[in-house]
């Protein structure tokens, strides 16, 4: 009689792995998706989902209200605000999201010394930096582009002019893409400088808000003293006014600068150079940071 195998307990011992090893690019993609999901608290504890999800909702609700207003108010032909204005008016929410999630993404690895474990695997320093940078920028892009998508769909439901709306939507997307890259770079650098999460949060808020406050104040003074030429150049010194200047010059946005003038194409080109320089600079600084933070 054959033994009843269903009741046997097998000690299968150690099994070696002969399957696929997908190497460096797969590891980089895995790190990217893990970091992107982590920015919204996915794959982390329930507690860490609360803040990013609330901020995401706070970003989307005004867009829904705008759409609702546009559809219900009779005779309206366009949305109450431009696509490019949306990110500027919600910059505090974007700043809070960055300040809470950038340290989560990089400070934890530094603080708990997990970084050497990454570098003892097939990925290299450049893979780690690129994956973290791309994940943070993507998280910000999702945060800033989703309300624009809601507005665009709403405008189509309201039967506004398709061409106009799509053009505005496209301009808005380019603007928030640039904003996402710039903010991600600045946020990650600030967060990577300190293993302490609290310092990272404070540093990011400081970098976003203090220059903005200073620039706005100086611009206000320049405007009230009639020195309007200085207003354009002042905008170079804070991240959000940099984006404001670029989209005013190239993307048909209405500037939030005092007087509403904003830079011309010539000055705007300087704005663009500064923004791209900051993005490249923060990437280079991150690479330098992890040269030291390795094993």
């Amino acid at each position: 009689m054959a033994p009843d195998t269903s009741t046997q307990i097998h000690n299968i011992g150690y099994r070696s792995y002969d399957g696929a090893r997908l190497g460096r690019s797969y590891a980089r993609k895995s790190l990217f998706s893990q970091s992107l999901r982590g920015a919204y608290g996915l794959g982390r504890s329930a507690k860490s989902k609360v803040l990013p999800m609330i901020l995401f909702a706070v970003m989307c609700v005004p867009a829904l209200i705008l759409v609702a207003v546009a559809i219900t108010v009779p005779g309206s032909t366009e949305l109450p605000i431009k696509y490019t204005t949306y990110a500027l008016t919600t910059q505090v929410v974007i700043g809070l999201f960055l300040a809470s999630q950038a340290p989560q993404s990089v400070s934890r690895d530094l603080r708990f010394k997990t970084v050497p474990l990454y570098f003892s695997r097939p990925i290299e320093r450049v893979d780690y930096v690129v994956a973290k940078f791309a994940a943070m920028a993507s998280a910000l892009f999702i945060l800033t582009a989703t309300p624009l998508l809601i507005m665009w769909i709403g405008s189509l439901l309201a039967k506004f002019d398709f061409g106009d709306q799509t053009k505005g939507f496209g301009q808005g997307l380019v603007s928030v893409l640039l904003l996402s890259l710039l903010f991600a770079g600045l946020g990650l650098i600030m967060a990577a400088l300190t293993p302490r999460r609290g310092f990272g949060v404070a540093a990011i808020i400081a970098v976003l808000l203090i220059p903005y406050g200073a620039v706005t104040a100086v611009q206000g003074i320049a405007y009230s003293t009639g020195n309007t030429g200085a207003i354009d150049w002042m905008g170079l010194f804070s991240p959000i006014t940099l984006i404001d200047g670029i989209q005013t010059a190239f993307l048909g946005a209405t500037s939030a600068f005092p007087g509403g003038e904003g830079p011309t194409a010539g000055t705007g080109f300087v704005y663009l150079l500064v923004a791209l320089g900051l993005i490249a600079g923060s990437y280079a600084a991150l690479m330098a940071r992890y040269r030291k933070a390795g094993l």
Partner: protein
Amino acid sequence: MTVIATESLSKRYPRVTALDRLSLDIGPGVTGLVGANGAGKSTLIKILLGLSPATEGSAAVLGLDVTTHGSAIRERVGYMPEHDCLPPDVSATEFVVHMARMSGLPPTAARERTADTLRHVGLYEERYRPIGGYSTGMKQRVKLAQALVHDPQLVLLDEPTNGLDPVGRDEMLGLIRRIYTDFGISVLVTSHLLGELERTCDHVVVVDGGKLLRSSSTSDFTQSTATLAVEVTDSDEHPDGTAALRKALTGVGLTLHAGEEQGLPGAGHVLLVEATGDQTYDTVRDTVADLGLGLVRMEQRRHHIAEVFRDNDQSVPGGQPVPGGQPVLGDRPVHTAQQKGAGSDGA
């Protein structure tokens, strides 16, 4: 087959020479890398993982050159760092799955291998809880699991017994032994404790100041002479049985060691006798019987690696064998007095 080979490997920092023309040839098995803090152990591991370029010389791991095939080496090698490296807010399973994927394992394989590996290192239900609540022993197991999860051909373990209590230490050493015997994965394990390596390793490499001090199999280190540890009771006739036996054994021409335990509590009543052959056992037994003492234990004790070094390094106090087999040391009476006190309490 050679697992690790280095050829006059040197690493110089502006002010420090971390490795100085180190040439090694390490085969499969468990190899201990011994050295004091700052002897160059961690620098060597960094170079072997292809993360830090050597100033001169060459190194190959699993037949792959470290300067050109760093990524390929790191796919086949596991690394367990000395320091804490675990985020406290995720569970062991989540963490090890992530690390498996970072080693290139597809998602399904990463989950299966994680479950297997955590079971092999001895983590069961607790693997679903956040790592922050783990004991040091459990954390060390998670660190070991992330080094093994991608089924490497070689693991580099940096001070795996750091911070563990004696039981945890024994379990970890047993686990390290199994990594080679059961899993077939070669191991390079660093430590500054010789005693634990001699029980675990097939081969021991000693580095000091970036130079190779000695490289040989563990049996070479310990086989030179066998030592018998003898412990006897006291009797009314001989209130200090140990002293009486020492006198008697010296009288019949046996050589007594001052062992490693010298100066430790309890060392006073263990005599270390050099065993020259089977007749030594008989001599000890007969001598004890003649004195009318109780023989508590007589066990074979291998030479400790440390003693080999003490022989070479005469500057270590209290450790060198006393010439002429007369282990008369100044602090002996103190120990004897303590023993007698303890003995009478028990009686």
